[in-house]
């Protein structure tokens, strides 16, 4: 085991990238992401990381620079938030559809408007169908470990997709936590030097990278992209197991269950709120209520089978979203979970819950109240109206 340090979520992401041996880093500052690349810039300036930093004039160019670098065979990294992610959408979509593996940290931030810089998952949730793998981390150790796992998954020949490691802005990006820092040699053994089979921009093999491609061939690309996403389901699980063997830490792969064995009702969470939800489950268990927790760690590809296995025999579940789905009166994860359960022929009571937008708090009391609602909902098969977690409690 390496040494123990105190680090913010942003530093954890930067350390994960540095330990992964990234060669090219390019980014543009934005709150709350900026200190990720500030940290890497300092490491590079100090000679502690033999990588090249390209200081660009926008996130659009940041993603474009790493796109060129990965196309030429690099292991690359960038990080962003909210408006920056929106600005880089064009090359962001192309990164996955060019099947170029990399890891990008997203310090989640609410999308403007209203204007604000605080945490939320609306940014990364809004691009969940741009072909990237998306992890959501619960704490800083998980951020660091997931960046390392992310490169191993991304560069797997059966995957070859870029990976987002998303974590809540401020709640994690600026929070100090205890971190076990792996030894460089251990990480090197876990993810060997990137040796691309996909190396497209090689003067020794003069190919056209992305020639004009008509629909019938394009559909073959899409089909294989979707298949790669499905392949990633197993590879993410396997990588987490290998990580546990090497470093002694595991995050359950795609999802993590907490006290679900005999639970009648389940809270479904994603990201940093999960820690608070665990406390609420413990408190309610003390009262004799059979409550459990399902943490969604990977949003893309969506872990359909896992979600079905955990939820299909329960009386009721609530999905707590730190984002909204404008077309439905719910959050996005709620819809995904409902879609996963569709076709099972079962009616399970469910409650869509929205909270924590724009840096608002999600408290233990909120979760306790959600569990009370679930107790009630579990008595009959209902689709509850959307619940909002407000300052004064749930509404």
């Amino acid at each position: 085991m390496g040494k123990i340090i105190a680090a913010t979520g942003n530093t954890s992401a930067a350390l994960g990238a540095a330990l992964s041996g990234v060669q090219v880093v390019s980014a543009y500052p934005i709150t709350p992401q900026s200190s990720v690349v500030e940290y890497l810039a300092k490491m590079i300036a100090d000679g502690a990381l033999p990588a090249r930093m390209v200081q660009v004039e926008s996130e659009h160019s940041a993603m474009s620079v790493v796109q060129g670098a990965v196309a030429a065979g690099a292991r690359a990294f960038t990080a962003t938030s909210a408006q920056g992610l929106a600005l880089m959408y064009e090359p962001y979509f192309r990164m996955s559809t060019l099947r170029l593996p990399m890891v990008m940290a997203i310090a989640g931030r609410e999308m403007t408007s209203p204007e604000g810089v605080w945490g939320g998952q609306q940014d990364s949730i809004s691009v969940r169908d741009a072909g990237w793998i998306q992890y959501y981390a619960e704490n800083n150790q998980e951020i660091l470990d997931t960046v390392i796992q992310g490169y191993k998954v991304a560069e797997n020949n059966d995957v070859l997709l870029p990976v987002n490691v998303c974590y809540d802005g401020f709640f994690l990006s600026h929070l100090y936590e205890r971190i076990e820092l792996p030894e460089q040699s251990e990480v090197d053994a876990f993810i060997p030097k990137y040796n691309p089979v996909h190396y497209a921009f090689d003067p020794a093999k003069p190919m056209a990278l992305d020639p004009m491609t008509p629909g019938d061939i394009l559909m073959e690309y899409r089909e294989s992209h979707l298949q790669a996403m499905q392949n990633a389901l197993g590879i993410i699980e396997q990588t987490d197991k290998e990580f546990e063997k090497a470093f002694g830490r595991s995050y359950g792969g795609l999802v993590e269950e907490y006290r679900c064995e005999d639970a009648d009702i389940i809270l479904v969470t994603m990201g940093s709120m999960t820690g608070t939800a665990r406390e609420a489950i413990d408190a309610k268990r003390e009262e004799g209520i059979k409550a459990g927790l399902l943490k969604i760690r990977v949003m893309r590809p969506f872990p359909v089978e896992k979600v079905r296995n955990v939820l299909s025999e329960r009386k009721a579940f609530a999905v707590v979203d730190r984002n909204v789905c404008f077309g439905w009166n719910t959050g996005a994860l709620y819809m995904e979970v409902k879609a996963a359960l569709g076709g099972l022929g079962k009616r399970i009571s469910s409650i869509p819950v929205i909270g924590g937008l724009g840096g608002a708090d999600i408290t233990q009391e909120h979760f306790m109240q959600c569990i009370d609602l679930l107790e009630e909902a579990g008595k009959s098969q209902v689709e509850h109206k959307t619940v909002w977690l407000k300052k004064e409690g749930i509404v």
Partner: protein
Amino acid sequence: MNYIDKLLQSEDLVSPGISACQGCGAELILRTALKIMGKDTAVVIPPGCMAGAGAVGWNFDNGLKVPVHISLLDNTAAFMTGVKTMYELSGKDTKVVGIAGDGATSDCGFQSLSGAAERGEDLIYICYDNEGYMNTGFQRSGTTSKGSSTSTTPVGKVIKGKEQNKKDLPMIMADHDIAYTATLSPAYMQDFVRKLEKAVSMKGGFRYLHIYSPCPTGWGTAPECSIDIARKAVQTNFFPLYEVENHKYTINIEIKNPQPVSELIKQMGKFRHLAEEDIQEMQKMVDKKYNKLKALAAMSQDN
């Protein structure tokens, strides 16, 4: 080796079967530029005429005999930066060359271009300036000349063509303090080849080459007159040939007795509607800009 032999003896790096419209300036520029760049080159071409002509490939085939990527319309210089950075890290000397139209260069691509220039990336960026979005049917760009009839600045009863002046890209790029800025014309091939060779020979730094690229299809000119038009653009001082290095401006082809700009524009359908006073105004603009260039060149001599 003189430039004619050089061009005769260099391999054409464009794949067989690739061709643009008759009399296309950009195709000539692409072929000639690649001959000078040579095989150890990776090319980035954003959407535009040369992409549309197939230089970026089709299905599973390459349109060039060197690696080529069709970048996004607005990220050419940033993508090039990433490729070059990785080449440097892996000890490759390969040149990374961008070949972009004026729309992708001066409008939405300008931010990434300006960023790469400011950083002084080791890149060669070639802009073929056909004064508009020609591949998609001649929509107006920031580099379309004032008065031009385009599909988005049509000649109507009230508004007659583009109302704004052309953005002066080479001057703007020179003011980024880059290693080398030059204007080139396919009608002056000796000067053209020399400038490309100079850009290639320079070690490091951002090199920006702005090339006048006649477009018979869009401009409403006779295909066989493209070189003639390119020559007239120089001889009227509408498109002067100069280069900038270390704040030194040098006019490479000085025209002793410049022809009036009307000699150039009378050949062009896009200017057919211009009234006498419009042409006089254009002449004034050409004179003003050329005087500014002369002043910069004179100042450079004193330095």
